[in-house]
């Protein structure tokens, strides 16, 4: 692994000079975000490893902040001249004369939430290819109806360094890996697709966590084959049971996004001014926590240098707090929560989720099924979306079933679930004791992409609108 000086070749003294420039027109605060990222991707299609991609990104973003205003510029040339030029561009957010100079930087230490001895980025290509082949073979052998298998192995290693005008200097190396298998199964002209993927801020040790390349291959094939048997989903309101782990996507959309503090500061979220209100049933406690070890959404510090701590958003149904970046935290006079994240050096940070989860309850999952007369049970998901202002959110299952008189029956397809966050959260009537985090596969897109984690126990929602095609 290269050292920080090798990547960025910039002394503390030079960083201070660049920050002086960024503060030269009256900004209250500035920071420099250095990034060197190497990403690799190998793809196997139709039995051949057909393409290898290596992607290198290297640059620095300079930000000057005044109140709620941000001036931002980035450069891929880390010479002092170019960095100063970028700093001067960022400085233009203010025009009230120079601010006090930046404080001398000193390195801030933190606990490492993703200790990895062998990042996948350093694993020999032959080894990565053997994982891919193992996944592909397992998928192909699982079911004779499998006609196409695509396997992608992606890894990255991102070295970041942040210097702030408040004197903080933080350095981190962020590993990430993800294997993804996509399977098409076909019978009598009916084609269905199954997907299985996972990973996290882990090395090759990921494949010792219970999931192997072959298990992802089999899982994707199982899903595709299952969907060949699926019937069209019903339309109308009914009960909903969400399986543990993956169903966290429901949480991410329904209350996650609307509790990101930029929407609160701008007064466009439906949760604006509602701290202290009951916004969910008392079974609901929601936490955002960037410290979950090796999780895809974990961060040692956010992209403006704040070390995250678990943030309680909803406690037993009462709205307790929001996810802040530095700007929103100052606006509300609270401490930043470590949610200021950015896609790369090309973008200023925004309040973003890290690992968002709903805490375990006390119900036996079997009781949850037993109590359900007519509903839908969802196990895995394609994704979701939310309208922040009115709270309406959708999420789309991949693997879902009908539940009839307490029993899981036919698999269903072609449905979107839609609910209103503030209404639906009051209808969480049971929470299981079987909490689990999702495997590392989720990426959130809020203008910028960010890897995130989710988690949830089995939960029951007494009514939600199931958007299938079959009228009841």
């Amino acid at each position, binding site marked *: 692994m290269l050292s920080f000086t090798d990547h960025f070749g910039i002394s503390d003294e030079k960083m201070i000079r660049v920050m002086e420039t960024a503060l030269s027109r009256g900004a209250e605060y500035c920071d420099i975000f250095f990034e060197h990222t190497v990403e690799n991707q190998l793809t196997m*299609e139709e039995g*051949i*490893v*057909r*393409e*290898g991609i*290596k992607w*290198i*990104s*290297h*640059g620095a973003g300079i930000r000057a902040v005044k*109140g*709620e*205003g*941000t*001036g*931002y*510029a980035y450069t*891929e040339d880390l010479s002092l001249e170019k960095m100063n030029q970028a700093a001067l*561009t960022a400085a*233009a957010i203010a025009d009230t004369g120079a601010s006090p100079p930046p404080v001398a930087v000193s390195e801030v230490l933190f606990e490492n939430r993703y200790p990895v001895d062998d990042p996948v980025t350093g694993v020999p*290509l032959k080894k990565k290819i053997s994982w891919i082949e193992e996944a592909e073979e397992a998928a192909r052998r699982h079911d004779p109806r499998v006609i*196409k298998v695509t396997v992608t192995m992606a890894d990255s290693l991102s070295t970041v360094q942040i210097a702030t005008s408040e004197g903080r200097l933080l350095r981190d190396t962020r590993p990430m890996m993800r294997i993804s298998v*996509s399977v*098409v199964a076909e019978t009598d002209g009916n*084609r*269905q*697709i199954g997907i299985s993927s996972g990973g996290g801020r882990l090395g090759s040790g990921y494949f010792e966590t219970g999931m192997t390349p072959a298990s992802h291959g089999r899982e994707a094939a199982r899903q595709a084959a299952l969907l060949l048997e699926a019937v069209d*989903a019903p*339309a*109308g309101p009914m009960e909903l049971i969400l399986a543990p782990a993956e169903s966290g996507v429901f949480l991410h959309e329904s209350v996650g996004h609307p509790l990101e503090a930029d929407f609160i500061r*701008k007064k*466009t979220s439906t949760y604006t001014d*509602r701290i202290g*209100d009951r*916004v969910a049933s008392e079974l609901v406690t929601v936490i955002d926590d960037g410290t979950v070890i090796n999780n895809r959404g974990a961060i040692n510090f956010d992209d403006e240098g704040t070390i995250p701590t678990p943030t309680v958003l909803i406690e037993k149904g009462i709205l307790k707090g929001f996810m802040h970046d530095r700007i929103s935290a100052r606006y509300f006079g609270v401490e930043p929560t470590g949610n200021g994240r950015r896609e790369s050096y090309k973008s*200023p940070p925004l309040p973003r989720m890290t690992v968002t989860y709903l805490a375990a309850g006390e119900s036996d999952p079997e009781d949850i099924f037993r109590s359900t007369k007519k509903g839908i049970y969802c196990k895995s998901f394609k994704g979701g*979306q939310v*309208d922040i*202002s*009115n709270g*309406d959110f*959708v*999420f*789309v299952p991949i693997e879902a079933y009908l539940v009839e008189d307490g029993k899981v029956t036919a698999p269903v397809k*072609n*449905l*979107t679930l*839609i609910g*209103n*966050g*503030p*209404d639906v959260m*009051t209808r969480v009537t049971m929470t299981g004791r079987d909490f689990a985090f999702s495997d590392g596969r989720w990426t959130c897109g809020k203008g910028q992409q960010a890897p995130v984690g989710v988690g949830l126990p089995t939960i029951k929602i007494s009514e939600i*609108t199931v*958007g*299938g*095609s*079959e*009228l009841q």
Partner: protein
Amino acid sequence: MENNRLKDLAAKTVETALARGADSSEVSILTDTEFSVSVRNGEIENLIESGSRRICIDIFVGGRKAVVTSTDISEESIDQLLAEGIELARVMDRDEYAGLPDKNELGAGGGELEMFDDAASSITAVDKIDMAMKLEQVTTAMDARIISDGASCSTVTLTSVLANSLGFCESFDRTSSSISVSCAAEDRPASGENKGKKQSSWWYSTSISFAGLDPVEKVAARTVERTLRKLGAVKPKTCEVPVVFDDVTARQLLSYVASATGGSSIYRKSSFLVDRLGEEIGSPLVTVIDDPLMKGRPGSRPFDVEGVRSRPKTVVNAGTLENYLLSSYQARKLGLKTTGNAGGPSNLYMEAGEHSPDEIIAGVDSGLYLTSMSGPGANWSTGDFSQGAQGIWIRGGKLAEPVSEFTITGTFAKMLSGIVIVGSDLEWRGSINCPTLRIDSMTVSGT
């Protein structure tokens, strides 16, 4: 000048790749300069100004392919990249379809495509900030209920350079300007738990040239209209009804169909249009064109991302699927010819029909006027279609109450064959455009 320097660098990199052991290679260099400002409540919230660049090298060694790319275009970095690329290519499997396009496909088509605004460099940062400020002011002044969620103005200048080992070496420049504004309004329901409920919307204009942007008054009016007409929205009953897709949702639908015609979806058997070439896939009212040679449009280009000369093509002709959108690799996999669509569709649109949106609405006794769709449930890979929706209920040919928190469900096959009217309102706001459409019947799932 700068383009010639980048073209030289690209051509030289191709040569070096061959010298290092590649048997063919393609090099692209992309540079961009961006400026964007967003304002809210009369103050600048974000001001971003920067330039970036990236070199991307495709290396083929004996039918094995690697791609290496970096933001560092120094000689030392490119040398390192090439070495890694060749090493990477050597461990790939041989792919009989891999390689550059046929030489006779390469070239620049269409003459002057008017993709560059010569006035771009004379538009100052102050002009752009003023534009965003004015857009916000005009929007909030239109109605006392409007809460601003900010307005923005941005400009981008892109240079695209491409060289390959068949002797191709070309470049083009493109400019793009856009403005947008978002706003919200309180929509507190009489009952229920959602005490902070609001409705929001946004609108925009985009153009090759700054002068070609829609007037701020027009953008503001559309944003305010789209926001206020949602106030008091109710959940509709579950039923089957005709659905009128407005130009926004029709465009979204067409973009899904465009994805389904893409070569990678076809050869991966992940499209509802697999094996349908030459067959009827929609109503005779549906004609879809992909035309990269239109002048001054956002998707115009003289060649695609692998240097294949651009040409217009009919994708769907009066309901019959005539072309997939193919790169040379995808075409070889399918035993077809490239359509110059490496990198995707260019300017893709559905040809306009004869009826205005008002006439289309007037023809519906009871149905849905669909103004927004959300979520990843439009599964063009299998043909299933299910989306979160918002809109306005149509009663007796007139727009009645706003509706929200429901879904619409159907299949692409039934929807395309169920297009019974195509509107006359084809407007160009991006690279994919579609007029208002009426689809005869879909399932609405609400209460």
